[in-house]
């Protein structure tokens, strides 16, 4: 495997880690309006409070890694996705401060609840829109983005936006099943059932639309004999979906969350099949966009030291805060 390919996999891992980890804590924000004021909302927020900002590490790593490893792709993608990315950042501010202000200022708790839920929904939606805008193909001339500032908006990008909100709600509700008890857990089981059905419907819709966006995507899914290998992905999605339905019905506490993670892993694998070996889908390949070899090696040394450290302390903090969240006070 050459260096640009290796970096493409490292960044794909960062994106996966970001999507599932920040996905479940954004999902808590998306479910927030449906939870009862008081104990239910307190517990839900406390269940992610110790880990949510660590989860956003991977967003920084994905963005920083794209700039460093594939500077040409960064220079083209960021202007193309300018509006959804700015919207996401602004939304993350409102949601982030709500973690503190909501507890410091009980008199205005309603306001901070709106800030938390609204920020979470908007951030998730903007991420989905960005994904859709990237997949549907962006206008490139030479080595520059050449489209307008509203190009990201299309029926397909709205579909992916809604899909990510629903998918994160599934991650959030299965997380709550794992972390809570009694009435809140019962409610989370109901949400997980609904969000699970919604997520599967969204995966089907996005998967059905994607091959027809670009000739190359179609080839990568249906060319013979490649189709024999890549067809395993939708089959696995069907199996995992069945397992999720079964585990929810049998009231498993951990399995639904793990199967939801698997669903996201398969979705990202599917995206990879559509896009690889491009980094600007349908426009620019990873080798064309890659930084000089010396830079990639230099960064690889840094990444091979830092990523294990990040994984260890992240694992440690999840271990410390394992188990049910309990009812007591401020996180």
């Amino acid at each position, binding site marked *: 495997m050459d260096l640009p390919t290796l970096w493409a996999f490292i960044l794909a891992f960062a994106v996966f880690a970001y999507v599932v980890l920040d996905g479940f804590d954004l999902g808590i924000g998306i479910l927030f309006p449906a939870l009862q004021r008081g104990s239910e909302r307190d517990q839900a927020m406390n269940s992610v*409070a*110790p880990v949510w900002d660590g989860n956003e590490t991977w967003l920084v790593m994905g963005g920083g890694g794209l700039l460093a490893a594939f500077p040409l792709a960064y*220079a083209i993608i*960021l*202007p193309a996705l*300018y*509006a959804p990315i*700015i919207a996401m950042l*602004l939304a993350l*501010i*409102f949601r982030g*401060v709500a973690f*503190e*202000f909501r*507890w*410091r*200022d*009980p*008199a*205005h708790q309603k306001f901070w609840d709106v800030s938390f839920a609204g920020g979470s929904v908007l951030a998730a939606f903007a991420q989905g829109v960005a994904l859709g805008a990237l997949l549907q193909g962006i206008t490139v001339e030479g080595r*520059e*983005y*050449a489209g*307008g*500032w509203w190009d990201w908006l299309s029926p397909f990008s709205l579909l992916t936006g809604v899909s990510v909100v629903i998918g994160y709600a599934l991650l959030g509700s299965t997380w709550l099943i794992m972390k809570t008890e009694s009435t809140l857990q019962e409610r989370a089981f109901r949400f997980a059932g609904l969000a699970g059905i919604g997520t599967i419907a969204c995966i089907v819709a996005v998967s059905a639309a994607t091959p027809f966006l670009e000739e190359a995507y179609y080839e990568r899914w249906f060319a013979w004999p490649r189709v024999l290998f890549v067809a395993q992905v939708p089959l696995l999605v069907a199996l995992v979906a069945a397992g999720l339905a079964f585990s929810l019905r049998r009231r498993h506490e951990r399995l639904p969350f793990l199967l939801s993670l698997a669903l996201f892993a398969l979705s990202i694998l599917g995206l990879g099949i559509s896009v690889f070996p491009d980094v600007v889908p349908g426009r620019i390949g990873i080798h064309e966009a890659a930084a000089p070899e010396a830079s990639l090696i230099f960064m690889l040394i840094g990444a091979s030291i830092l990523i294990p450290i990040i994984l260890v302390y992240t694992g440690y903090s999840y271990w410390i*805060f394992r188990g049910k969240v309990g009812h*007591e*006070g*401020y*996180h």
Partner: protein
Amino acid sequence: MGPAGFVAVIAGWVTTEVGRQPYTVYSLLRTADSVSPLDAPAVASSLVAFVVVYFAVFSLGAWYILRLMAHAPMTAEPGLEAGDAPIRTAGITPAPALDPDRAIGSDVEGR
């Protein structure tokens, strides 16, 4: 002397930014060659949005800090072992977890 630090930091920042013009990377890349291919309204609206959001959030934060400072100091500050709530390691004192009376607005709406 309080604001002098801010003035110094901002003056230093302005000096570096103005001083390296017309280059982004000194003597290698000109500012005119390094601008993003973004439409002016996109940049303008994002700038306005950031200014509005930052002013709103920082104003609220400053207001909370002033409210907290208006409380008289506690005579017997409880130690961390006073509560068994998990605390954050980021150095934020979880005061309301230890003593609900210290939350802003606890006098308005008891928790």
